[in-house]
């Protein structure tokens, strides 16, 4: 009995609600017949064309394959900083191991400093004109000084003291091998070099020094400072994309032993474990260092501000050599100055003690002393939770003006208070965010070692996504850091923040899957959009649990290895059983945007009077007089209401549809009837999708009684019709309004079509003007 009732009910729904679609399908078929055939353009088709074929190196699951290999480069280096002339001298011995199945007849070495050579093509790649007005000091630095004489001077390239032939092509150097380097073999060679260290504040480089007129001192943050091995792998062969300035680095892993000689009154930090701490630390520093190792809540000052102020007043001609060893790192960097304040704190990461460390000139205080080390510690905790236990023993945040740049275990960060020590929230949050970001880069790409030269988003996008998580958690740990706010003011991550970019002119937007040198807006392209995409994936598409498991799986699979975009895409699906080809295709391979709206709403009430559409449909099944046909005598019908009509809606549907009422009376007991829900209204709602991206359809229904519910229809609602989808909804309450994406989860670029009944959205301008008038 129950079955018959529901059959009848579904029949009547069928009558009215499937009509529109039938008509459309017919029309569509006729059009297609005229157009001829087509290939599969469905947004849900798999990415077989775009993805590389899985192989023995990289599997279809997104994991390293059985024959996965990577070559390694170990370095022994002696580095001397000549502070007077700002020259860095180095002698390095590289041991390169060929684990590839091919034999190599030459090696490629990267000479990134050459981007600053006088004749560097990087300086000529952009169109430019003269600045019409220029601040006086810029004019002096730009036009009145000699052009900076940068780039490596290569003194020698040798193997067993015999010179090796080499050829420098701009930022890369090909070293000829005496004989091919076979699989499993290693080759040792040495390079002697030097270069003029640049002022990074003047020429905005990733490394160099900042000069302070007071006491004539420099803070050195030194990176890309030595000839580094290029990567050879199964994807690229030798990386042959030059360093042009925007695309960062592709580097192999290796072990480093580095001795750095600097003036003896400098305080220095670097990638790796300090081997001779007792020689370079004073007794006082040693004692404080031991305290710091046991201090899990408070940073301990190794060099305090007064000591740093004293230290910067005089200069010595003596030198000291700091010795470091680092294992499994892809790069090496150091910071050194007699201006440094130096603090440390221990942090427990899954039972392992790590040191959170900060170095900053007094100009960074009080902000740096208060927050830097705490931010470092908190970042290691969050990232470790989402990836793997941070494998290195320390992470250092160095304060350098205008910098935000990452290296293994060490990074440079901006955020400087005014001369009187005061700072705005903007400076504070800018500083906290950049520290979180750059410390986060230890995970991507320092450990999950993607190729930055080809894919900026693989480290920047994933890292900016994780940065968002770390920022939010940091604020929970330190509520005092965010004042009265309810959460950390993250610049990126939330869907609404990417709308401005995604709705922009297509001419100036590139797919995420574009080389960083070729994009128009690197910040949105490589950072903002992929970070937002992952956030949406986590919170709206997959759910946190499935996402977090898969993301962690990716990080662990590719820890200390070299992943490609497909390895990431495939792992995310493989570990979650969520097919995401549609998501990667739309968000990463195209510049499509989200725009979903509610196009049309039809409201129906239950009635026993055969409707015109109902009669027509039944006629096709040979029922010409439905009221007197025994098969349909008890059928009830639905009647379309005008949107503003109130006459029927206010009445009980059973009253309105006596045939249904009789049927219920005859077939059900009083008690059964009381438990039975007979919908009063039926809605046929058409959602349209002017935007190219398919996304889950999130709809909030608000009822006349003030209650509301939010329904999430899976993205697959778009699988058969990319333009629109019609949903039917039986309801006992009359719907007052319908809102698509009520919580702004999808980065919908046009909200003017998101509501029914349509409502004019007040523009930012009007809101601002209104607030001014109040």
């Amino acid at each position, binding site marked *: 009995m129950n079955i018959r009732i529901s059959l009848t009910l579904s029949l009547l729904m069928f009558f009215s609600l499937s009509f529109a679609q039938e008509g459309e399908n017919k029309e569509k078929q006729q059009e297609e017949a005229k157009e001829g055939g087509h290939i599969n353009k469905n947004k849900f088709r798999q990415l077989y064309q775009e993805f590389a074929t899985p192989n023995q190196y990289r599997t279809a699951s997104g994991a390293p394959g059985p024959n996965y290999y990577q070559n390694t480069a170990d370095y022994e280096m002696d580095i001397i900083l000549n502070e007077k002339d700002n020259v860095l001298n180095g002698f390095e011995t590289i041991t390169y191991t060929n684990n590839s199945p091919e034999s190599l007849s030459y090696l490629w070495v990267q000479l990134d400093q050459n*981007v600053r050579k006088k004749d560097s093509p*990087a*300086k*000529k790649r*952009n169109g*430019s*004109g*003269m*600045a*019409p*007005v*220029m*601040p006086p*000091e*810029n004019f002096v630095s*730009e*036009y009145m000084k000699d*052009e*900076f004489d940068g780039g490596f001077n290569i003194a020698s390239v040798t193997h067993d003291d015999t010179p090796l032939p080499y050829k420098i092509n701009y930022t890369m150097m090909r070293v000829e091998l005496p004989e091919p380097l076979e699989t499993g073999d290693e080759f040792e060679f040495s390079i002697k070099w030097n270069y003029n260290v640049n002022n990074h504040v003047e*020429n*905005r480089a*990733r490394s160099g020094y900042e000069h302070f007129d007071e006491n004539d001192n420099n803070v050195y943050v030194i990176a890309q400072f030595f000839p580094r091995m290029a990567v050879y792998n199964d994807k690229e062969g030798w990386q042959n994309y030059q360093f*042009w*300035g*925007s695309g960062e680095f592709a580097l192999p892993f290796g072990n480093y032993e580095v001795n750095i000689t600097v003036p003896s009154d400098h305080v220095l930090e670097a990638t790796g474990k300090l081997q001779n701490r007792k020689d370079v630390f004073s007794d006082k520093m040693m004692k404080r260092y031991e305290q710091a190792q046991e201090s899990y809540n408070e940073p301990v000052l190794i060099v305090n501000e007064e000591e740093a102020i004293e230290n910067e007043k005089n200069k010595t001609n003596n030198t000291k050599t700091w010795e470091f060893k680092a294992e499994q790192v892809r790069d090496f960097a150091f910071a050194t100055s007699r201006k440094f304040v130096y603090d440390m704190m221990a942090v427990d990461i899954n039972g392992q003690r790590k040191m959170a460390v900060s170095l900053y000139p007094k100009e960074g205080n009080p902000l740096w002393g208060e927050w830097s080390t705490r931010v470092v510690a908190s970042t290691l905790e969050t990232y470790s939770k989402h990836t793997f236990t941070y494998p290195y023993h320390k992470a250092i945040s160095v304060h350098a003006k*205008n*910098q*935000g*740049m*990452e290296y293994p275990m060490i990074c440079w*960060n*901006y955020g400087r208070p005014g001369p009187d020590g005061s700072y*705005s*929230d*903007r400076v504070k*949050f*800018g500083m906290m*965010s*950049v520290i979180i*970001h*750059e410390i986060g*880069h230890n995970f991507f790409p320092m450990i999950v070692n993607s190729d930055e030269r080809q894919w900026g988003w693989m480290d*920047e996008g994933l890292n900016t996504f994780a940065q968002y998580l770390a920022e939010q958690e940091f604020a929970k740990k330190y509520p005092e850091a965010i004042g009265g706010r309810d959460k950390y*003011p993250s*610049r990126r991550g939330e869907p609404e923040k990417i709308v*401005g970019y995604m709705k*922009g*002119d297509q*001419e*100036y937007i590139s797919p995420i899957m574009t080389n960083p040198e070729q994009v*128009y*807006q*690197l*910040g949105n392209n490589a950072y903002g959009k992929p970070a937002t995409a992952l956030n949406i994936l986590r919170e709206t598409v997959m759910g946190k649990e499935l996402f977090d498991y898969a993301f962690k799986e990716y990080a662990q699979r590719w820890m200390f290895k070299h992943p490609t975009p497909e390895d990431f895409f495939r792992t995310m699906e493989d570990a979650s059983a969520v097919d995401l080809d549609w998501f990667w295709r739309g968000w990463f391979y195209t510049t499509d945007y989200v725009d979903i709206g509610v196009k049309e709403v039809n409201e129906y009430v239950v009635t026993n009077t055969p409707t015109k559409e109902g009669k027509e449909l039944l006629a096709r099944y040979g029922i010409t007089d439905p009221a007197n046909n025994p098969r349909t005598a008890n059928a009830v019908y639905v009647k379309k209401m005008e949107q503003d009509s109130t006459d029927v809606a206010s009445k009980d549907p059973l009253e309105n549809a006596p045939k249904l009422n009789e049927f219920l009376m005859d077939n059900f007991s009083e008690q059964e009837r009381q438990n039975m829900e007979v919908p009063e209204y039926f809605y046929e709602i058409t959602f349209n999708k002017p935007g190219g991206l398919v996304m889950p359809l999130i709809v909030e229904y608000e009822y006349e009684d003030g209650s509301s519910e939010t329904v999430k229809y899976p993205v697959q609602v778009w699988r058969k019709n990319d333009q629109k989808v019609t949903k039917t909804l039986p309801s006992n309450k009359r719907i007052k309004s319908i809102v698509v994406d009520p919580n702004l989860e999808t980065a919908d670029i046009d909200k003017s079509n998101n509501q029914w009944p349509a409502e004019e959205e007040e*523009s*930012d*301008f*009007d809101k*601002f003007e209104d607030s*001014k008038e109040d």
Partner: protein
Amino acid sequence: MLFRLLLICLLLVPKTQHQGHKFYLSLTDIVYDQEEKRLKITCDVFVDDFQQLLEKRYQKEFLLVEGEEYRYTKKYIKKYLADKFSLRLKNVQREIKYLGKEYRIDKLRFYLYVENVEPFDKVAVTNKILIDLFDDQKNMVHVNNGQKTKTLLLEKGRSNGVLNF
């Protein structure tokens, strides 16, 4: 000599920080409101850049922090915007009025408008904001004439453009 100057100038180009905004971008939205016969304009710039600009250009101290600005700040902002941002409709340069500004985390938004605007299908926009400080500054301008939105990407050496609807 000119060649040499250009080269030196270019030295400044590859600004690539790795978090900050590292790229210099402003975003201007111009929307025509036919009922009010007004162009309603919002213009977003990075606060840090803008403060640096004001300091360098006017050789004064500026503190662009909500509630902590020096009194003369508004005067200089208005002057700067008037010098650097202009619109021509039907070959007539139109006066852009300053409504106010708003701090939005790391961005500063200016609200501007033009009055007595008849429907148009062509507009010329000049936006040199921040280009005098940053060689690689890009100024994106969206214009909606009530029917369509079109975009200009303005930069050094190409700081004005015409949109036909």
